[in-house]
């Protein structure tokens, strides 16, 4: 069995309260199961409850052994780690993989900074778990047991990876936080900053990277995609913030033959009522035009690939 459970789907900051009960207020955390194997994507605030579940259920079968893939090191994607109970339990084995922006920094330092006395009462050195950190780039990895993962750089204001997990012919793909690549150089010769070489190279680079992204999504059984904004919001004031619109994600998923699209990384200001309304709006919009199934990611829900 190849499954995905959502433990956190909120963007930017946890949003507890009566308006976020249905879709959840925890930041990014996904649990992926490939038969016995446990893979976690991101350590946002949702990882706390996943940890509690592992302590209730999995620990009975033996020590926790998991790979954690971090999409990027922005705070909402790592903030839950100090409250992930298995890190305090001797015998736990964690392999944390993720991209870092400069070679001078290391992933363990970025993560470990949260576990220092100025932020938290326990230091990284005092944890019970055995934790290995691995900085990763664009690559393909064999995780054993028939599970593989391919990574792809996304477009976010910091290095950020998308993950494509494959198991027994099925695929689960994550593509957040990201917005479509775009040419950031002026293309109008009348612009005082116009440079013909940069304009041409920029066009080509953006086009090629966007094509690579589409190839990365192709045929996915489940695609978890950043949809923090509507197209109108995106164009009005969010270009360059590193998040996608619903319209882009739906189009990209449809064009690449994705089977199920989970709309993810909900804007912290979006209430349950608004998300529900948007969900119905986009479902209606594609009805009868595509085989694609789409829905808003909901905290606590499990999907089988």
């Amino acid at each position: 069995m190849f499954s995905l459970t959502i433990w956190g789907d909120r963007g930017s900051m946890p949003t507890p309260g009566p308006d976020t009960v249905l879709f959840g207020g925890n930041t990014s955390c996904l649990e992926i199961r490939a038969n016995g194997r446990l893979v976690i994507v991101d350590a946002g605030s949702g990882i706390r409850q996943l940890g509690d579940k592992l302590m209730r259920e999995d620990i009975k079968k033996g020590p926790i052994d998991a790979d954690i893939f971090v999409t990027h090191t922005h705070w909402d994607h790592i903030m839950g780690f100090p409250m992930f109970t298995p890190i305090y339990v001797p015998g736990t084995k964690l392999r944390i993989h993720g991209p870092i922006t400069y070679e001078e920094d290391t992933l363990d330092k970025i993560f470990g900074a949260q576990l220092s006395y100025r932020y938290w009462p326990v230091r990284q050195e005092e944890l019970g778990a055995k934790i290995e950190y691995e900085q990763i780039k664009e690559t393909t990895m064999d995780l054993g047991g028939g599970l593989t993962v391919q990574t792809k750089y996304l477009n976010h204001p910091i290095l950020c990876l998308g993950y494509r997990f494959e198991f027994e012919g099925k695929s689960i793909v994550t593509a957040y936080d990201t917005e479509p690549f775009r040419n950031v150089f002026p293309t109008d010769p009348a612009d005082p900053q116009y440079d013909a070489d940069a304009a041409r190279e920029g066009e080509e680079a953006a086009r090629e990277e966007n094509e690579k992204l589409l190839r990365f999504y192709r045929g996915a059984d489940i695609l978890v995609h950043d949809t923090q904004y509507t197209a109108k919001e995106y164009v009005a004031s969010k270009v360059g913030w590193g998040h996608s619109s619903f319209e882009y994600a739906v189009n990209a998923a449809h064009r690449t033959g994705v089977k199920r699209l989970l709309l993810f990384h909900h804007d912290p200001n979006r209430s349950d009522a608004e998300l529900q309304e948007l969900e119905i709006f986009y479902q209606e919009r594609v009805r009868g035009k595509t085989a694609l199934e789409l829905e808003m990611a909901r905290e606590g829900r499990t999907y089988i690939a």
Partner: protein
Amino acid sequence: MPGSENIRRVREYVVGMPSLPTTVTKVLEVCNNPKTSPIDLDNVIRLDPVLMGRVLKLINSAYYGLGTQVTSLARAIIMLGINTVKNLALSTAVVDRFSDKGAFRAINMDGFWRHSLCVGVTAKLIARRRGVDPKAVEEYFAAGLLHDVGKIPLNNALPDEYVRTMALADRERLPLFLAEKRALDLDHCEAGRVVAESWKLGGAIADAIAFHHTHESYRGDHGDVVRTVAVANYFANREGIGFSGNLFPDKPGPEVYGLLDMEKSWLEELEAPVAAEIEKAKVFLKLTH
């Protein structure tokens, strides 16, 4: 063997090699400004061989194993994002830890900067005139800009020895790379190779760094770039644009122009556009001299 000790000192220096003093103020200004435009970022990095090399290192190490070497800065900015490139530039643009104002250096870094830029611009203009694919032209620029990068560690990590090397070249009327070999058992092409390895630069850029004085015996895959940089280097020295320490430059033989399928006379026509590009850079960097 003095060569191995000198190589060790070069290697040590290269790890934290700072950007050039000529560009550092502008780099800090551009990169500390939250509203910096991508084109300003592109402009400021391409004016500094150290920054350019390190940004190329980042993009290529990030894509290591994917086959193609990225040599365009515009592409790096789009793929890695403006923040990543800005932060990388900021971490490189530190004041030289060896820059003791009282110490004498063989090569003045302002003159070196001007020479490097001139060779980059000239190589690019020659490539354009030869009808090289526009996509590849940027590689000619990067190769020209970086060709003498090996002189930075020689000048700064071996300051006294390098002054003596220059004196030897002067006394014996030798091209600088030959004097380096004799005095240091290490020329700037070999030192440049150390830099290129550290920055994981391969292909045409690494070959231009390593072979621009020995292009006649070069048999690799990037002959056009290596020879173009050799011609551009000769042009910069002949015109006295900038100064990279070479008072008695080696002159490319006539066969080089034949191999490049270019006329030597093109160089005369390059004087004005090269001067214009350098002037533009000076205005951008607010240089007064």
